[in-house]
């Protein structure tokens, strides 16, 4: 079995949660693996991140260079191509950096590439069988990947549970001397932090969250009326923002806000993992969707198969009716 590496994303001296998930994925590919973490960066932040991984990886490769302070995928690809042994299996988290890095890395390593892997189904000879999702999670697929000349695999964040096994005592090995020239056709300028928006959906205990099923901008009012009646806020999934029906600041998901409500009403939301990744703290999740096969029903506590454009106004009317009765 080829040697397994995990490229680790870190920031401010803290490694991303995916670091421990990649270690778990490596052991699922090969229970006997001694996976190696690779970190690039500079200074005390890099040292702190490397130290944090010594108990989870058999080795930690540190690549320090002032030119790698900000993670530029093109530069890091060049570095990885230099340091990685041929036929390596390389794991990377499937998030914005991994999406930037991994496909091109597989070309330069001349190895197989498979993205957004949720599970490892087994190894048969030179074939690694993995599980992916397609069509927004409506179906899963087994994919066979020929790893005879190595593989680059991006792993879905949250899909592998970090293991509790006996802690390792991996040595930090400094590979900085192997970095060659660092020039790239793309140069980082700055990061623009998202605007706060008029309503802070991260501060609400109840969210009425709408997806593509709301169908048109005018219908957002239907959700707003219910939210007003419940003392809740309206949040949304990505398609609603893409269509410019709500502000980006209302979007729940990996490219939007992370929310921790007590109650989450998912209305016309299919339940793509990028959306679910933004819902933390295990709220009680009620899903309303016309499509009985929508993946949201796999994760919801209670599901209703109905047309939200009819269901929500009736629900709102009933809330008003209850309040009127209670006031009497």
């Amino acid at each position: 079995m080829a040697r397994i590496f995990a490229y680790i994303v870190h920031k401010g001296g803290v490694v991303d949660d995916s670091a421990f998930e990649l270690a778990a994925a490596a052991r699922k590919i090969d229970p006997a693996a001694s996976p190696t973490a690779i970190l690039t960066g500079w200074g005390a932040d890099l040292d702190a991140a490397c130290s944090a991984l010594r108990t989870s990886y058999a080795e930690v490769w540190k690549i320090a260079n002032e030119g790698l302070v900000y993670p530029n995928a093109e530069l890091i690809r060049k570095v990885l191509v230099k340091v990685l042994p041929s036929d390596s299996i390389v794991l990377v988290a499937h998030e914005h950096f991994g999406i930037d890095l991994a496909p091109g890395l597989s070309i330069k390593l001349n190895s197989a590439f498979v993205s957004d892997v949720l599970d490892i189904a087994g190894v048969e000879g030179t074939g690694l069988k993995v599980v992916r999702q397609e069509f927004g999670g409506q179906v899963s697929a087994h994919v066979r990947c020929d790893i005879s000349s190595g593989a680059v695999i991006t792993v879905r964040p949250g899909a592998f549970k970090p293991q509790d096994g006996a802690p390792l005592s991996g040595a930090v090995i400094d590979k900085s001397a192997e970095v060659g020239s660092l020039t790239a056709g793309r140069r980082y300028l700055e990061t623009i932090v998202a605007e706060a928006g008029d309503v802070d959906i991260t501060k609400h205990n109840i969210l009425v969250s709408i997806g593509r099923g709301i169908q048109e901008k005018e219908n957002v009012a239907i959700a707003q009326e219910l939210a007003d009646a419940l003392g809740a806020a309206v949040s949304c999934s990505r398609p609603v923002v893409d269509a410019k029906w709500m502000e980006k600041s209302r979007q729940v998901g990996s490219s939007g806000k992370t929310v921790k409500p007590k109650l989450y009403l998912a209305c016309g939301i299919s339940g793509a993992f990028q959306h679910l990744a933004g819902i933390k703290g295990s709220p009680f999740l009620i899903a309303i969707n016309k499509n009985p096969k929508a993946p949201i029903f796999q994760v919801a506590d209670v599901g209703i198969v109905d047309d939200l454009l009819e269901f929500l106004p009736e629900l709102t009317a009933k809330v008003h009716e209850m309040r009127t009765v209670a006031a009497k």
Partner: protein
Amino acid sequence: MEILVCVRRVPDTSENEIELNAAGDDIERDDLVYSINEPDNYAVEEALQIVTRVGGNVTVATVGGEDDEQILRREMAMGANHGVLITDEAFGGSDGKGIATILKAYVQKGSYDLILTGVQAEDGGAQVGGMLAALLDYPLASLVNSIEVLDGKKLKISREIEGGNKEISEIDLPCVLSIQTGINEPRYVGMKGIRQVASIPIPTFGVSNLGLDPSAVGDAAAKVKRVDYFIPALGKGAEILHGSREENIDKVLELVAAKGGLK
């Protein structure tokens, strides 16, 4: 600026419930509604807007079969100057690298300053743009959500990163950008527009006129192959309410109250 946009025709998941076929080796495709992959449509719109600002031409290309001409014409009706169908029996069963290899051969036939793809297809791996860039040794940016042309040699672009933040970079031309949804508002295409481009010939390219080695593409070259589709064994899943709408509303309100709402 000469812009190539690589597009794909995919089953439209907003129009379809995806189900397995009887053999379990594919999805049931008989009654599927197909459309252009959504991020690809944003990419075409972005290309059209760039050309409006700085001049140039937009070419849309797809690797596929005859049926895929339909989306090329749709994008031509939006305003793309040319459509190109890259098709050959030898391309069947290509993995991501195979498709990127085919596109590389096409790119090298022309002279493009900028190549756009959608960030990901419904049944894809967010991979072809990044692979194509690496094969061409062009710089890449993925998840792009704004483009500003600085001069004939570089762009200022924004990438969508975590929490809705934006990563701003400068990138040299020629380059490959994978476009995220929401970057613009794609224009509407009516039947009339599609009729107007119905008779424009769409050139086709295959193994021979791309100068491709057939063994580098298609099923035989693919290191990555889908074995089967399946519906995963669910966790406990939601408790589906089967009552009348009125009963379901009462139940929801009961649950909302129990969770501390409706105070």
